[in-house]
């Protein structure tokens, strides 16, 4: 029972960052109709920025975090402006191929810059875990969880309470009508891609110090983000939030009770199961993509 509670707690804490990844991807898909294969690279970029500022430049950990997120958002905006702006209205396969190209290029640039050796990042947290009765959690993971929840809440507020968020929601519903109402679609797209990329970079910056940072860490992050988004239904933000936690639970329980070697396979088995049972995801939307 204690072991089960521990798994549950671990899953809850991991789920927050998974949700960040999923929300970023689903926003980009829902609003721009782009399957963002470079999503995981933004995640890796966030982790490397933490490494750069904390370990190379020696900056304060708490200062480096927002900086890494901001730089991730800037990189996302650049990708959108350079690669995607001209392809607005192109079919989904075209943008997909471009994003695959961007992914390969970005990942190998990371490998060139940082070499393939795994990097670890020091944190200011005490190494003794926080013990709560039968379960324990490291201070670092607790910090990750709190920041992830705060970022999720901030994203919801941004989308539901601000003018930009309103423009995003309008574009999501109907691009043409939104454009007719005077919404600058190009700006909405750049903002969406920057926001989604910033969230991915945040997930990377948070998890980088927990695990280690490698150039290929983005691959699994991309695939997990896809699993989360399919689980919640393409384009659904609440779906992606819940999907992140569900995936974390399934992974954690699968690793704990089945085999830790298959931990990363759980997400993919989940995708296949979802497609057999409920192809539109848990939070089904009226329309289907494809």
């Amino acid at each position: 029972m204690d072991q089960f509670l521990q798994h549950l707690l671990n899953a809850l804490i991991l789920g927050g960052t998974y949700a960040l990844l999923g929300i970023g991807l689903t926003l980009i898909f829902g609003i721009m109709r782009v399957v963002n294969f470079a999503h995981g690279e933004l995640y890796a970029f966030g982790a490397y920025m933490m490494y750069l500022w904390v370990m190379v430049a020696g900056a304060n950990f708490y200062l480096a975090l927002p900086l890494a997120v901001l730089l991730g958002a800037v990189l996302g905006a650049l990708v959108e402006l350079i690669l995607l702006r001209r392809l607005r209205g192109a079919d989904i396969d075209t943008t997909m191929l471009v994003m695959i190209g961007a992914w390969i290029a970005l990942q190998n640039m990371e490998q060139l810059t940082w070499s393939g050796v795994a990097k670890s990042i020091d944190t200011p947290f005490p190494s003794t875990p926080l013990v709560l009765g039968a379960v324990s959690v490291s201070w670092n993971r607790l910090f990750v969880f709190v920041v992830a929840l705060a970022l999720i809440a901030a994203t919801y507020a941004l989308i539901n309470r601000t003018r930009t968020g309103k423009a995003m929601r309008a574009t999501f519903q109907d691009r043409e009508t939104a454009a007719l109402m005077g919404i600058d679609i190009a700006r909405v797209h750049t903002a969406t891609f920057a926001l989604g990329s910033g969230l991915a970079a945040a997930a990377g910056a948070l998890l980088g110090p927990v695990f280690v940072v490698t150039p290929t860490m983005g691959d699994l992050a991309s695939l997990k983000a896809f699993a989360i988004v399919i689980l919640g239904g393409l384009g659904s933000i609440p779906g992606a939030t819940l999907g992140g936690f569900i995936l974390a639970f399934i992974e954690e329980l699968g690793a704990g009770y089945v085999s830790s070697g298959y931990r990363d396979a759980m997400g993919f088995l989940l995708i296949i199961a979802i497609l057999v049972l409920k192809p539109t995801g848990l939070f089904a939307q009226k329309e289907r993509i494809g």
Partner: protein
Amino acid sequence: MKRAITIAWLGFLVSVPLWLTNLYVLHVLIMTGIFIIAAMSLNLLLGYTGQLSLGHVAFFGLGAYTSSLVSLGFSVHLLPAWEVTLDPKPVWLGMLAGMALAGACGWAIGRLSFKVRGAYFVIVTISFAEVIRLVALNWVELTQGPMALNNIPYLRLGIPDLIEVSFLRKPANYYLVLAVAVVCYILIRRLVSSRAGRAMIALRENEPLAASVGVDVTRCLVLATVVSAAMAGAAGALYAHYVRIVDPDVFLFIYTVTMVIMVVTGGKGTLAGPVVGGCIFGLLPEVLRSFEIGPEVQWVTYGALMVLVVYFLPEGIVPALRGWWRRRSGEPVEAEQPRPAAEAAR
């Protein structure tokens, strides 16, 4: 005229091992040939039905592993008390088994994911490849995991003790790969010009219209997936018995990407496209290596090339060259162009 060019080309390809003394170059050609077969199989799906499979390497790897395991023999415990043993079988049987298993997985994937297509199909195929890779990595009893399958036997054909051809040396493997590639090419050509093939193209162009005139959408797509998967499995089996060592790295996503780049650059939906793209991207790494350019730079180049091709040659090299040739020789442009219009309408 066209036939003469084809025969001249084939004659040239057949003559290569006779005058090429550099065995390393021959090795590169064999690997390029294997990748061209895989790219041709991907083209059947991506080019003719418009479905992007990003897990194609799973079929390739399944073919490689199945063929190796059948010809090596294995013994595994499916349950603690239930042991399954297979004695080594001849290599050709292993190759057929590899193709069959890859084709069967293609069937399952097709049935499963053609209910929902587009982005879903892409993600299902990636997931499938990733699951298979993790199984190959973790099921050590069967696959040796990261230790790899070693000493895979090479192919022998003929009647034992009487007449036997062994495919151990490079020239023999070159001819084997060439023969399989030609068979696959002819098969795909016949398939796409058949009734089923025209139905596939109709689907790609306008699915509601195709369905309304009675094209059985799912059946058509599943057929394409099965043929494509079995062909990729054949390429994998050729690879396994040529290189004679298989490890879970054959499932690396980067190989799928290589196939996609070959097809897209060469020209998806054309017969010659994967061959042209395969030649370029099969030989390019060797050219880059001779300039002492590292693999990372090579991959960055691939990524950039992919973006550039989508921007500037969205149809690929073969259609672009064909158009250029027609304009130069003043032939009227065939009514082969409605594809971009159909895409815009989608």
